[in-house]
């Protein structure tokens, strides 16, 4: 019997499923950052809003990267539905804590797929995902640095304005 599946698709089918789930997660991240940006805009924190709009775009880029990878390799990528987006926050600090938690969850999810790639010896997908492993490390650190600013400078009036300025300039 011919191996038609392998002739048609270059990646493992179960990995394809996991990558499709990852597409959903990246789309969710993108929308979550958009909601956070909106909150910041409404609360006079324009620097943070700008930063979060940029984050939202980056998450969409991540989504597209995976989307194209699946289709280019003979799989089928599914356009994600997004729900459960949180719009209510108590403070800017809470926003960045939520953001860091979200990134950590994404890192775990990526690691989980990499582990599965090794198990089924899908080295093409593993290699593709290495970029994401590195990207997640950078994103986590970026939010950690922002949260450190709150630890150092506090969260009241002037400090908040200063932090917002710094976030805008990608400190």
């Amino acid at each position: 019997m011919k191996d038609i599946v392998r002739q048609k698709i270059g990646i493992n089918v179960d990995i394809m499923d996991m990558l499709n789930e990852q597409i959903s997660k990246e789309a969710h991240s993108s929308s979550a950052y958009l909601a956070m940006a909106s909150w910041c805009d409404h609360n006079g924190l324009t620097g943070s809003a700008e930063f979060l709009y940029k984050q939202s775009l980056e998450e969409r880029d991540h989504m597209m990267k995976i989307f194209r990878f699946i289709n280019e390799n003979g799989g089928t990528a599914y356009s994600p539905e997004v729900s459960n987006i949180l719009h209510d926050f108590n403070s800017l600090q809470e926003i960045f804590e939520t953001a860091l938690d979200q990134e950590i969850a994404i890192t775990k999810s990526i690691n989980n797929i990499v582990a599965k790639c090794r198990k089924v010896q899908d080295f093409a997908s593993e290699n593709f995902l290495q970029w994401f492993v590195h990207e997640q490390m950078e994103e986590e650190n970026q939010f950690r640095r922002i949260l450190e600013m709150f630890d150092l400078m506090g969260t009241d009036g002037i400090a908040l304005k200063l932090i917002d300025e710094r976030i805008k300039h990608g400190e």
Partner: protein
Amino acid sequence: MNLLFKSYNFASYQCDRSRCFYIDFGHKTVKLSFCQLLSLRQKVQKIDLDSHFDKDLNYSGIEILTLCNREHLFILDTMQVIEMKELIKATFGMLELNSLVTHS
């Protein structure tokens, strides 16, 4: 044609000559490209069986399955959904096994 899996009502085949797959639904056999088979797999996997046991979520206990860009339409009851899920799982299991044998 190579039989991949046969359940009580359904069966799946691979045809080497046409490089296609066939699903026998009992009363009708449908020819699927690999891409269409993947799409069937996605649709069947996405069916939430739990909702079949909740009157508020799925009152009628049926699922409507469209195949090949809505060229075919199937209505499955709970038992058939269970069987279809099993067929898809076993079919892809067989295909993976074949892959291992072919390229080892």
